[in-house]
């Protein structure tokens, strides 16, 4: 009936918690020419928001999820649409009790009130619980229950008052795009609905479970799948009704059965993440008309819920005689890596995603996306883990989305180790050496889609040689091996060969390439050909956006080498800021180039055997073409004098197909020189930490700038670059408030006398008297990386500290598994070979 406008600056599709909050936040940031669409009626258009259980447990091990959740909870509170019901996670197993110690640690890190309860204490708060089946509880008094529908309505109203036009019952039929102006990237043009076409500069897909289908209309992807979460409302229950309240008792999460029990007035909602994964294709979701309840409240499949009912009755006997009055297979969104999909989609300029967001994160994530659209990057927090550009093409396929979502669904309440590996969808992308590494019993860790050896079981003899022991506690030893320490010590003593083929390598070329490279990078790229520059890229606000190597490979060419975790995001960033005049071309040459790292005191000798190359000819950071004799063939390669592990040697670039020959030649030559295949445990952790090298996504996030990270160069380059203004202002403001530090663990013993090893999972760094350390921005000091420093015989941690606590020798504590361990600041840089003598040879 109502016609949509012909034009709008921004069209937001989807009026669930995310879309509503997004238009509200955009309006607050000054956007007035907005249109909000939904194919369903308002206020409940039939998406996942309409049947959400609407509670927020604030503690999460992930910084991103936890802080955006906290941001959301605060927004609900601010609107007066939130009640702090409190919530208790209960344990039925000793493993879960250990996990609670870890949750206490995360609660301390993020400053969330929490405490552990005995079964009897749980029983005092929840009188109807069977304390005989639980071992204890983890209690958060600030667990809250929110009104997501009303919050959405209020936020929509804020937007409407600023000029946003809202159209319910309006279905999107297509999203049209046009080529350009960026080379090789389409730009969004219009949203075609059943009530007319709206030309728009920006389009945001906030369609929850339908998001991928809507993105597909523009030949783009938002990798998520609608998945069933079963929920049954049982009642009436007198003890609940007697509270005369929507929620009068703490919510109980029965963690080991993957279920929750949440009071809803006189009845109890029992929800489950325990049933078999039930995934649906978005085309199989009924329309509002076709659905008996709503499209995302699908028919309940009771057989999948019987086990959970038995366990629920075991925990709360009164539930057994309550009637099942409403039961659904509720749909929610799952992604391949269990993180949301936020940001501009890589395929289409100005087409944005705000999806795979649950009620508990909705308002905060909407704010992040609104800021991202307004300022070029979120201000509230770095959202790198949720960035929709993180996915590689292999991760966008339905096969991948379904397999991974099915695998992690039952881990929703699981105990997930920080280094836990996926079981499904392995060997998607492998290096040229994969079969050789398999023969050497490599333990592969997968980095997004790429398999990388973490250590080689064939090196087990090194543990004897160096007298190495496994870790005492299984949790610390899980996904770890002392072999990695052996490989480290061998590299320092002899040499190691590291497979770096997962490096994501891009090439900028054309007359504008060097100038464009300089626009991306903090450090100067307009250097002589053959020079490599290690440099951050910044957000417009001057925080870290990337951290990588750029190599001036020619007069008009620049090569970009970045890590596999950020390859997708960095490619996106590099393509999205390109000049539109055609002066720069972009190419992803990852699968044309293989990279091997050859490092250690014997590395020059190994290499000398393959070439006439003379060690010491080229300065650090130089790229030299070289011919290498590999058996009966000579292959052309490039040597980059650089190291991430602190020992002399090279990154060797060669054609992908020449890789196996190169590997074989190096291994044969190195056999007598102590060369061992060496895994990511050395490259990414122990070698790196001894040198104090920062890692993007760990130490380097958009909340921090190069001054704080200790990566500022003495002079600011003359050329303009993204983030320069903010960075210059930070430089002008004087010494940074916090500094990135390397710390050593002074005593590993816990109360039980066992040696414990932090994982680098945001363990809080506390003062000597046990207080949380935060700076004026509220940023908390926490362990960003952790690992052994075998060559300095210390366990090493990294973390930001306020300047007054950052001095060498400063004595602090780190909480791990809810126990305190003494640590000491070593400095801000390398603890091994701080003068870089070995590195420079």
């Amino acid at each position, binding site marked *: *009936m109502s016609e949509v406008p012909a034009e709008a600056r921004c069209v937001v599709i989807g009026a669930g918690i995310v879309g509503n909050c997004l238009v509200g936040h955009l309006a607050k940031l000054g956007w007035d020419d907005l249109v909000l669409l939904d194919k369903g009626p308002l206020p409940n258009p039939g998406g996942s928001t309409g049947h959400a259980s609407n509670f927020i447990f604030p503690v999460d091990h992930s910084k991103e999820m936890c802080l955006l959740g906290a941001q959301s909870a605060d927004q609900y509170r601010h609107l007066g649409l939130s009640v702090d019901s409190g919530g208790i996670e209960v344990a039925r197993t000793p493993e879960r009790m250990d996990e609670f110690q870890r949750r206490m640690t995360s609660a301390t890190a993020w400053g969330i009130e929490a405490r552990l309860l005995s079964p009897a204490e749980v029983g005092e708060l929840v009188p109807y619980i069977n304390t005989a089946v639980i071992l204890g509880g983890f209690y958060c008094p600030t667990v809250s229950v929110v009104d997501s529908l009303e919050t959405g309505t209020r936020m929509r109203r804020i937007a409407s008052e600023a000029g946003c036009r809202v159209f319910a019952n309006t279905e999107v039929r297509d999203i049209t795009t046009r080529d350009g102006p960026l080379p090789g990237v389409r730009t969004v043009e219009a949203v075609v609905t059943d009530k007319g076409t709206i030309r728009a500069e920006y389009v945001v897909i906030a369609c929850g479970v339908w998001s991928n289908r809507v993105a597909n209309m523009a030949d783009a992807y938002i990798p998520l799948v609608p998945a069933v979460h079963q929920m049954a409302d*049982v009642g009436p229950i007198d003890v609940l009704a007697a509270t005369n309240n929507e929620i009068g008792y703490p919510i109980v999460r029965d963690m080991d059965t993957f279920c929750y029990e949440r009071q809803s007035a006189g009845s109890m909602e029992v929800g489950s993440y325990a049933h078999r994964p039930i995934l649906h294709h978005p085309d*199989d*979701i*009924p*329309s509002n*008309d*076709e*659905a*008996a*309840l709503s499209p995302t409240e*699908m*028919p*309940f499949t*009771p057989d999948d819920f*019987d086990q959970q*009912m*038995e366990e*629920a*009755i075991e925990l709360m006997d009164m*539930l*057994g*005689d*309550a*009637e*099942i*009055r409403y039961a659904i297979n509720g749909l929610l969104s799952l992604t391949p890596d269990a993180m949301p999909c936020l940001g501009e989609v890589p395929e289409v300029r100005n087409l944005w995603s705000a999806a795979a967001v649950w009620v508990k994160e909705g308002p905060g994530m909407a704010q992040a996306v609104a800021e991202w659209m307004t300022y070029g990057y979120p201000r509230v927090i770095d959202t790198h883990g949720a960035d929709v550009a993180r996915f590689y093409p292999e991760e966008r396929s339905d096969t991948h989305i379904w397999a991974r979502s099915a695998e992690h669904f039952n881990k929703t309440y699981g105990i997930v180790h920080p280094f836990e590996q996926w079981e499904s969808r392995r060997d998607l992308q492998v290096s040229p050496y994969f079969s050789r590494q398999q023969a050497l019993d490599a333990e592969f860790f997968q980095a997004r889609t790429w398999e990388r050896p973490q250590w080689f079981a064939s090196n087990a003899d090194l543990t004897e040689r160096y007298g190495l022991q496994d870790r005492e506690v299984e949790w610390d030893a899980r996904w770890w091996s002392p072999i990695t320490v052996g490989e480290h010590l061998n590299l320092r003593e002899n040499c190691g060969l590291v497979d770096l083929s997962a490096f994501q390598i891009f090439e900028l070329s054309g007359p504008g390439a060097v100038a464009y490279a300089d626009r991306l990078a903090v450090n100067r790229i307009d250097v002589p050909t053959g020079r490599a520059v290690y440099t951050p890229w910044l957000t417009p606000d001057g925080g870290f956006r990337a951290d990588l190597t750029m190599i001036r490979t020619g007069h008009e060419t620049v090569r970009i080498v970045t890590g596999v975790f950020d390859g997708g995001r960095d490619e996106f960033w590099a393509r999205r800021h390109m000049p539109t005049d055609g002066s720069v071309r972009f190419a992803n040459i990852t699968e044309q180039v293989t990279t091997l790292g050859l490092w250690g005191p014997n590395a020059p000798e190994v290499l000398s055997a393959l070439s006439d190359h003379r060690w010491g000819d080229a300065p650090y950071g130089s790229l030299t073409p070289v011919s290498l004799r590999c058996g009966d063939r000579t292959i052309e390669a490039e040597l980059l004098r650089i190291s991430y592990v602190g020992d002399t040697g090279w990154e060797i670039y060669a054609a992908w197909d020449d890789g196996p020959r190169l590997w074989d030649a190096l291994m044969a030559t190195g056999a007598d020189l102590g060369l061992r295949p060496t895994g990511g445990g050395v490259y990414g952790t122990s070698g790196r930490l001894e040198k104090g090298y920062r890692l993007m996504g760990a130490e380097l996030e958009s909340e921090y700038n190069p001054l704080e990270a200790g990566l500022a160069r003495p002079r600011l380059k003359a050329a303009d670059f993204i983030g320069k203004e903010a960075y210059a202002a930070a430089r002008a403001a004087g010494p940074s408030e916090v500094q990135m530090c390397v710390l050593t663990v002074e005593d590993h013993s816990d109360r039980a006398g066992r040696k414990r090893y932090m994982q680098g999972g945001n363990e809080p760094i506390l003062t000597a008297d046990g207080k949380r350390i935060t700076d004026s921005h509220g940023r908390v000091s926490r362990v960003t990386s952790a690992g052994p420093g075998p060559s300095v015989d210390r366990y090493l941690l990294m973390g930001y500290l306020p300047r007054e606590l950052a001095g060498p020798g400063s004595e602090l504590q780190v909480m791990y598994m809810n126990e305190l361990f003494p640590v000491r600041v070593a400095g801000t840089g390398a603890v091994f070979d701080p003068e870089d003598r070995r590195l420079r040879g």
Partner: protein
Amino acid sequence: MRICCCVKRVPAPGARINVTADGQAVDVAHLGFAVSPHEECGVEAAVQLTEAHGGEVTVLTLGAPEAAEQLRYAASVGAHHGVLVPTDGSGWDPQRTALALTAAIRTLEEAGGPFDLLIFGNESADSGGFQVGIRVAVALGRPMVGGIKGIEIDGPTVRARRETDAGFEVYELPMPAAVGVKEGINLPRYPTMRGRLASKRLEVAELAGDALPGGQAMRRLHRPAEAASETVILGTGPGAAPSVVDVLADLGVL
């Protein structure tokens, strides 16, 4: 009392009913299944009667093997026995259905004695043939009244109430008897969790049964044409009242 309650597994009402492309069946892709609503009330009525007067409820259905789910549902709200007359799931015409059910009831009665009361739904939610219960009752020689919204047992008599425009009619049927009940006779209880779990243990008895097709054959299902109407908006808010009253005056209902 021995009560036999006949139920039908139907796509759960509440959603728009679509038809498969070949027009031969309801498209159940988005639909759950349920006991047809009148019959759900029939089960509740039967359970209430046995709660008040003792005895047992046997729930009988004819349909695809999946219809055992509906027998379990009935068991989860208090029915004692479940009997399935399995079919290939295709839609049987009313005569064929009634013959097979009649045979099944005869078999059950031979084994366990006569049923005092047969309870049917007045009509099924899907095909709405308005006759299967009556055909069974006639075949078995039982008195049968449909449209029932109230049942009481008074000695050997079933006192049944049937809603009319003005109020209700009262019938008194000598048992053994049959009734067709309608939604509104009661508010059926929901299964409890324990009831649901107990129903998993229900042993569904199967009785083979078939009969020759009757004279009514389904050719095609289709959706009625939706009348495209042009809605005249009389106004917004209370200010529209005069226009509304103009319309009422024109219609002559003032």
